[in-house]
């Protein structure tokens, strides 16, 4: 367990006109993150993801709760936590008139690394993140993807055990995003634990080993993407038929691989709820063909993380 938190809380006081309001941004977060995994924090904007991340990265002090990060106590020893983690903010961290190399050397030196070693590390990071070509140009000349890679290189220049990335792909085009995913997977290969926040379902699904879904300051679900999807819903096979719906219903309802069968409202087809769509599909085809029922169409729908989110919160993440 590289991160373990219990009851982490934070509220903010804000003033609207004369009225003072207390906003509970994070209301008791319990988390466990395993060493060497990519852990994703999924939720809509304003769910409390960034606040939680900033607490874990020692940037804001929690109101309550306890947390151990890379073996150090967050509340009692934030200085030690700071030395063991890296943090990459959402909004970027580079100065327009500095070059990537200067930024990397300075950042390494701020962590107490000597001048020569800092220069070597910067050179290595520039190579690893495919930035060597632009290393001595000013940051303001970089593309969004390049600048984001500099941000991440800055976050890990001191070789932390764990790195926090706040929405690392927000605002990137699809190609840069795919590139960024590769960079993040590479960090895991190097033995680093990666903790990311995202509001992209595809990202959480494709990139993360485990995820926690956050909404209104609370964690509403935690697990691997597959576990979460399986937990809330079956795969659904929709079979389109020409008139032989009752026969097909009789054949498939109660079959070992089907959990539940429904007739479509239109009357020309069936909806089958199955545990594993990939293996159930050929069985459905075989069963119908053997009994002379012709299919018009067949379609498999697997639940997405959005279905998980919908089930857990009553809202769709995509609506936001």
């Amino acid at each position, binding site marked *: 367990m590289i991160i373990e938190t219990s009851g982490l809380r934070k509220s903010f006081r804000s003033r609207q006109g004369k009225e003072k309001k207390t906003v509970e941004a994070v209301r008791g977060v319990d988390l466990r993150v395993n060493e060497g995994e990519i852990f994703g924090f999924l939720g809509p904007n304003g769910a409390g993801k960034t606040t939680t991340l900033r607490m874990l*990265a020692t*940037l804001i002090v929690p109101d309550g709760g306890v947390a151990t990060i890379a073996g150090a106590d967050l509340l009692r020893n934030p200085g030690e936590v*700071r030395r063991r983690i890296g943090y990459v903010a959402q909004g970027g*961290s580079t100065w327009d008139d500095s070059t990537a190399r200067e930024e990397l050397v300075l950042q390494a030196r701020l962590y107490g690394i000597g001048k020569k070693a800092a220069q070597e590390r910067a050179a290595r990071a520039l190579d690893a993140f495919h930035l060597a070509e632009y290393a001595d140009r000013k940051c303001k000349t970089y593309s969004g993807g390049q600048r984001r890679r500099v941000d991440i290189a800055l976050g890990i220049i001191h070789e932390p055990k764990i790195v926090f990335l706040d929405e690392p792909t927000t605002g990137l085009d699809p190609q840069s995003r795919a590139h960024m995913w590769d960079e993040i997977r590479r960090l895991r290969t190097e033995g680093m634990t990666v903790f990311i926040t995202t509001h992209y379902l595809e990202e959480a699904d494709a990139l993360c080993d485990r995820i926690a879904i956050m909404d209104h300051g609370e964690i509403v679900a935690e697990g691997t993407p597959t576990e979460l999807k399986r937990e809330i819903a079956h795969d659904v096979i929709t079979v389109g038929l020409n008139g032989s719906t009752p026969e097909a219903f009789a054949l498939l309802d109660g079959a070992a691989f089907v959990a539940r069968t429904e007739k479509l409202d239109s009357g020309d087809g069936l909806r089958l709820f199955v545990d594993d769509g990939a293996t159930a599909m050929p069985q459905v085809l075989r069963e119908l063909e053997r009994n002379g029922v012709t299919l018009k169409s067949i379609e498999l729908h697997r639940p997405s993380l959005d279905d998980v989110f919908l089930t857990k919160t009553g809202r769709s993440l995509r609506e936001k």
Partner: protein
Amino acid sequence: MKFLRDTWLIFSRQIQLLLRNPVWVFVGVFQPVMYLLLFAPLLKPALSPLGVQTDAEAYRVFVPGLLVLLAIFGGLFQGFGLIAELRAGVIERSRVTPVSRFALLIGRSLRDVVSLIVQAGIITILALFFDLRVFIGDLLLAYLMLALIALMTSAVSYGVALAVKSEDALAPLMNTVAQPVLLLSGILLPLQFAPGWLEGVAKWNPFSWAVDGTRALFAGDVGNDRVWQGLLIVAVLTVLAVWWAAREFARSVR
């Protein structure tokens, strides 16, 4: 040791960036030079009741005031740069490292002191062409006064910038502070002209002591009580300002 090392890191980066964009040094000098060229010539007749009879004497009264003005304003507006750095995420990036929080402040304020002294040097040299003459030892003491003022005002500006976090709030705030400070310090015209009540109010403005002290130094009157009094008052205020700003840095940064 760590503090000194961290301060050096921050300071040298800031100087490096300043040198990359040296135009700002000259933008800073532009206004004072305009005063020197376009306002100071009015002073000889205006100051004649005080016994000023030559250009050199007029500049000896005006240049020290101008330099103190430059130090006050130059310092007070440094907070804008910090807000830009906050917005770019540079400050947050420093905050997650174990860097000394005090060094983040002092490294930047020292950059401001250096840039002020360079500007003051340029203006002093220009004033030499107008027959201003000042002993080097006195000048160095006057620069010490200016350096302390710049350190104080830039620290205050950084502290306020951290608290308000927006240019829109910082600009009117700094202007509101700077204007009465300017008018009550006898920078443009000596307060000898002031009616009694105004002179009485100005006695409570520490910068009027600083201006008097600096003027005495430019007049070669290093033994004047106003010199050590001005330096002492400014030094105490600088310590307080730096202490307060350091607390703001430490609090918002932990």
